[in-house]
């Protein structure tokens, strides 16, 4: 842990861990979830913002009572934000947390 004079070559430890199958699995499960999902929600948000500028007529179309397409999409943005946050947390909890924690202790043991 910090403060002690490092007896081992820290760089080699980190390189070895980075190459290990356990780390590659954690990295893979993180990136395969986060990158596509980030792309989707950013595209969906920018589509929504751009639609105000590009297709105001569509956004004005009434849906139910005073609610029009713009309000519907806006409320859907709230819903998808909550949903994606929950999905991310579940994914991290079930797929990554345990493996990451044990790899953390392993790595710190090697660094000691």
């Amino acid at each position: 842990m910090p403060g002690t004079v490092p007896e081992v070559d820290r760089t080699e430890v980190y390189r070895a861990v980075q190459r290990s199958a356990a780390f590659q699995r954690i990295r893979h499960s993180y990136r395969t979830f986060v990158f596509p999902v980030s792309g989707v929600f950013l595209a969906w948000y920018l589509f929504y913002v751009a639609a105000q500028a590009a297709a105001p007529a569509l956004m004005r179309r009434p849906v139910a009572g005073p609610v029009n397409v713009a309000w519907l999409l806006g409320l859907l943005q709230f819903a998808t934000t909550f949903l994606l946050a929950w999905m991310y947390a579940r994914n991290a909890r079930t797929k990554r947390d345990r493996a990451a924690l044990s790899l953390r202790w392993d790595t710190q043991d090697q660094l000691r």
Partner: protein
Amino acid sequence: MRTATPPPVAPTGDHHGLAVVLFAVVVLVTLAITFWAGRRGGAAEDFYAGGRDFTPLQNGFALSGDYLSAASFLGVAGLIALYGYDGVLYSIGFLVAWLVVLMLVAELVRNAGRYTLADVLALRLRRRKVRAAAGGASVVVTLFYLVAQMVGAGSLVALLLGTNSAQARTWTIVAVGGLMIVYVTIGGMRATTWIQIVKAFLLVAGSVVLTVLLVVRFHGDVLELMRQAAQHSGAGQRYLEPGLKYGKSFTSRLDFFSLGLALVLGTAGLPHILSRFYTVPTARAARRSTMWAIGLVGGFYLMAIALGLGATALIGSAEVRQANSAGNTAVPLLALVLGGGNGSTGGVVLFALISAIAFATILAVVAGLTLASSAAFAHDIWAGAWRGRPRGSRGSRGGRARGRRAVVPASRRERGEADAWTGTGTADGAGADGAPAVAEHDEVLVARVAAVGIGAVAIVLSLFAQQLNVAFLVGLAFAVAASANLPVLLYSLFWRRFTARGAVWSVYGGLIPAVVLVAFSPVVSGTKVALFPGMDFHWFPLENPGVVSIPLGFLAGWIGTLTSPEPADPDRYAELEVRALTGAGAV
């Protein structure tokens, strides 16, 4: 934000007595928290990170407390009261931004950094100029945001207390600035966090009370609320359609797109939000606090939409605008009406309570910003870039890349250097040879002095910027954060080949265009509401620079990396990646 006419339905005279009392209570309670928290430890860990022992729930409240400024509480609801649907758009950008924070930033930053954004970059790019660039950008972002909040505080507090004199505004700005300096210098992160928690709780509780009263008033019929709002808005059905504020021309729609981009990408680059993740012990706790924040912020904005609609339905857009041209007093006025109207006890009490919550909001947010700004100055610019320069060992630049695998003494020296750079050493570890402990003590002292200095600068700037629109200043702070901080952060975390030159170019490549484009925008000159209304030197048509400066920040980082004379150090990236994803070696 600037107005001269007193609110027509707002309480006058003795009604403000209760508000004054509650404002005093807020000040006393926050000062008590500050002195109570300030007694506990003066180490860097305490000052910058509050001892890292907050729970996810506490930090979730603190995060939303930092995020929900008076601009959100009063500003967004006010915009909805005036412009209907176009105000709703604002709140959505503010919320969706949290997904970027949650997925790409929170956990990795918690694991890889120590106190500030620049710590994360310094873990793999050990160059003084990287630290200086990132620290400087953080100071600029927080200053913009700070000025926005304090200008808002000036006009708002004066308005809530029923005076509109320029003198009252000036003294409010000075008093708020003085208080925030006290909070930060004495209480550090621990006091600031507790103030945020209390404030966020009050804010959410106040919003729930108002929303419940509003919904009861409309017998739970939200569609009827929307109909009534449209009816009393003066714009009819157009109130519920996009374009009331941002629909006049293609330029104004593009401006809105630019703002939307800045909002969604800026949050993840805000220094005072990022430093919050260091107040919890693990990355998992950082994730859980972000989840709490998303729930609180999302729920809050849903209520703000209802309250904005309610203000229009029950008071009317014209009256809201007459009370304050930017609509900032819509929520307090709504509280007055929901409590029973002007003259009734319930109305006056509710008005005073909501005003006091707004005041607490302002105090808490400026304290968080001042702390982040002083941390960036003391930890990144002073200790990291200026004092942390490798003294008398210029050769270590090249040695850092190759000599690390050599003998132990070399790595020992290197490690000492790394402590200064990335802060991998800790307070207890520093006891080994004494010297870093002294440095840490000095650093905290510098941070406290910096808080005083930054506070003073912010007070002076705010006094000059009193005429500027607050929403614009906040939007600008987000644009600068998204242009200067986010690209370099994402590249560092995810791009294997990213180099120090790429980092420096990315920070300045986003920061400089953002600031320059604003200087030549209609906000500064060429319009009646500009900073210099008498002059016209603007050539950039948009008010918000985001749509140009954010891509430039990413582009500059990419080009800087490609043209870099030296390749990226794969060893450093291995350390960053392993540490960020597993927490191994994290403090």
